[in-house]
């Protein structure tokens, strides 16, 4: 439970939303007095993938599993990197070029941990969290990461997540 008005909000928070993400609200979830470093990462919809001109993206999630996997990844990353707080909001549905698909905020006492931790969390999210994007471009559409999409970032092909 987020302790609204109590001594510090829940240090981990995860959400999947359909409406535009309010990054300031994500930031507010991780700020705390003991942390001198806060990093906020925005993953936004790019206008181009390789030579393709993107019209829009469609995101889809297996929501309960995605939230559980985010929490598991965050636990591991916070432990490894010494983060004191991590919040992640991912949007699904149709997103236009320039919109935020994901906002991740982390906080730690010093910056090195926050910078490394946000990268570690996103790297694992892209392999272990069941969220998909379909790119709709001029002349076609493709699920990013599938074998017929050489442009996408490839996922771990088989087996359980590490």
């Amino acid at each position, binding site marked *: 439970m987020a302790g609204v008005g109590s001594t510090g909000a829940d240090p981990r928070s995860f959400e999947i939303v359909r409406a535009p993400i309010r990054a300031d609200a994500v930031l507010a979830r991780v700020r705390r007095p003991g942390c001198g470093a806060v990093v906020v990462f925005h993953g936004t919809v790019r206008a181009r993938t390789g030579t393709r001109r993107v019209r829009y993206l469609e995101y889809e999630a297996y929501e309960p*599993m995605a939230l559980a996997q985010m929490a598991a990844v965050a636990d591991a990353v916070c432990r490894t990197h010494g983060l004191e707080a991590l919040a992640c909001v991912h949007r699904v549905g149709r997103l236009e070029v320039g919109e935020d*698909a994901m906002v991740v905020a982390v906080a730690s006492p010093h910056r090195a941990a926050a910078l490394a931790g946000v990268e570690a969390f996103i790297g694992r999210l*892209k392999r272990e*969290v069941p969220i*998909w994007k379909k790119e709709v471009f001029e002349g076609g559409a493709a*699920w990013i990461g*599938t*074998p017929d999409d050489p442009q996408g970032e490839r996922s771990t092909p088989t*087996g359980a997540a590490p």
Partner: protein
Amino acid sequence: MTPPPPPMPVEVRYFAAAREGAGLTGERLDVPVGLTAGGLLALLAGRHPGLAPVLPGLRVAVNERFVPAEAALAAGDTVALIPPVSGG
């Protein structure tokens, strides 16, 4: 003579490219007792030829956790077909 065990029900969920390949978001199936996750994939590939291009790289989650192909299914399991993910 012992009668064969009754088939066990499982819930299958399809996402992203697997959803489009199968042409549905999910279905309830009665499958043989002792079927593995990999065995179910083979069975589903037979039912839905449109899944073929999606099979390489596909992972299986049972009750919202990734499992290896040799994991045995149990009655009432929710089995999700997870194509390569691409969040963020």
